């Protein structure tokens, strides 16, 4: 359990720029006791490589961006002749 004395707390709070009066410090000591117990209760035995993806999620790419720019172009299929052009050839 990360136990902190009131002096430790004063030192840490000095880094945050907070200045507490004695009453506020007494409240914090009480609250910290509860929070420290909660922190101590969190299991930490997780594999190092576990769950790296919880931090953020990117939106999927927009459809226009999905085409791979280095991929070879598909062969162009010949257009079927229109009825009009077939008739003209006759």
């Amino acid at each position, binding site marked *: 359990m990360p136990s902190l004395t009131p002096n430790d707390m004063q030192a*840490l709070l000095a880094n*945050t720029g907070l200045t507490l009066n004695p009453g506020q410090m007494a409240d*914090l000591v009480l*609250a910290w006791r509860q929070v420290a117990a909660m922190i101590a*209760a969190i*299991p930490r035995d997780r594999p190092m490589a576990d769950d790296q993806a919880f931090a953020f999620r990117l939106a999927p790419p927009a459809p226009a961006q999905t085409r791979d720019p280095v991929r070879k172009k598909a062969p162009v299929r010949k257009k079927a002749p229109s009825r009009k052009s077939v008739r003209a050839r006759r």
Partner: protein
Amino acid sequence: MSAGDLGYLTIAEAARLLAARKVSAIELTRALLARIAALDPTLNAYITVTEHQALAAARAAQRRLDSGDGGPLTAIPLAYKDIYETAGVRTTAHSRLLADNVPKTDAETVRRLAQAGVVMLGKLATHEFAVGGPAFDLPWPPARNPWDPRRFTGGSSSGAGAAVAAGLALGALGSDTGGSIRLPAAYCGIAGLKPTPGLVSRRGVIPLAPSLDTAGPMAWTARDCAILLDAIAGHDAADPASVAVPRTTYARGVADSVKGLRVGLLRRHYERDVPGTPEALRMMTEAAAVLRDLGCRVSEASLPPIAEFNGVGRILICSEAYALHEATLRTRLAEYSRAFRVRVLAGALIRAADYIAAQRRRTDLIAQMAAAFATVDVLVTLPTAGAAPLLTEQRPDDGFAQPFATTVANVGAVPALVVCGGFTAQGLPLGIEFIGPAWAEARLLRLGHQFERATGTRDRRPVFQ
């Protein structure tokens, strides 16, 4: 109809009367404003009453109804927890620090409801910045419970709970980070839905802890919550947490049968972790029988202990709220309430490694929550140990000293609905909580509606001298 009768209409009933021209938008709004004037000096549900805007909105809504362009929420008088930004209307977060804060734009949910034609009656009391507890060292007093004004409303959507139960608004929007919709719903005997994260936009809602915050509806019935959810749910591209889920109609399905629904009682949670009072436990036994009568298949289910969810939730809330307020705490510490300082200042001492450990543990708990839904469709539990305690019994460090059963659904990232499950011998409401897997709001609202109908709890209202 008297002001009392109109104040105690459900949203669905009011919409029917408005459509049938049996009541006008102005009549309904005036009736609610009269109730606020008469009862709010005792209940303190409102921080700001927007009488002139409300009457103007009612006139506009009536024109819309007259032209046949009305919907299920047109002319319905609602109010918002005072952390929802409202263009041109003071949004204080119940804090001295924002006493003069007048936003330029509406929160996205407020905008959607305005588009639906609702009448905003005003802004509702909360705990300061939606955290802490009832505080007497702020410019506005804490809300009081309509069933007994000496008692706590629950929080932090405290004014919303009081206003809806007392008929000072037909519905409200609250927010829920660790139970702030569901606790007042339980103590005030109304319905409150905490949606799946991402279903309802949080844009324009003053945050408490962004990794856990949700915005949701509160109303007298589950059906009314469904009507409100129909208007506010849906993707908002400008809210990074919003998710584009397929559109569902919530209100249309509430009357459908719940026959065959697999319901799991979280007995360990409400008997051991946060043990219910004898009356609350009796209510749970009776509720299980009601669910069986409705055709549900009732069994027992289990989740990790409440303390695990609660510990993770408290560390995240404390750290994130501190981070949001650090700059102001440095310069204006004394202007915050003692309740806020007690709940948030410890965040200054939480190390980044501990915050990350809490986030990682949360991913485990979310997975375990999802696994629980492999065998059941809905989990059932008590949101609170019993009925509302006296306001004088509340201590600023209660949030740490006593675990909240409601935090389970916030940390587990799932939707949860609280409805009234019954009453104590003293006539105080007792809540019951239905928890579903992600995106199962329609199922929860259907079960809540059927449960309310079967138990008849919606026929009883607070009585004022």
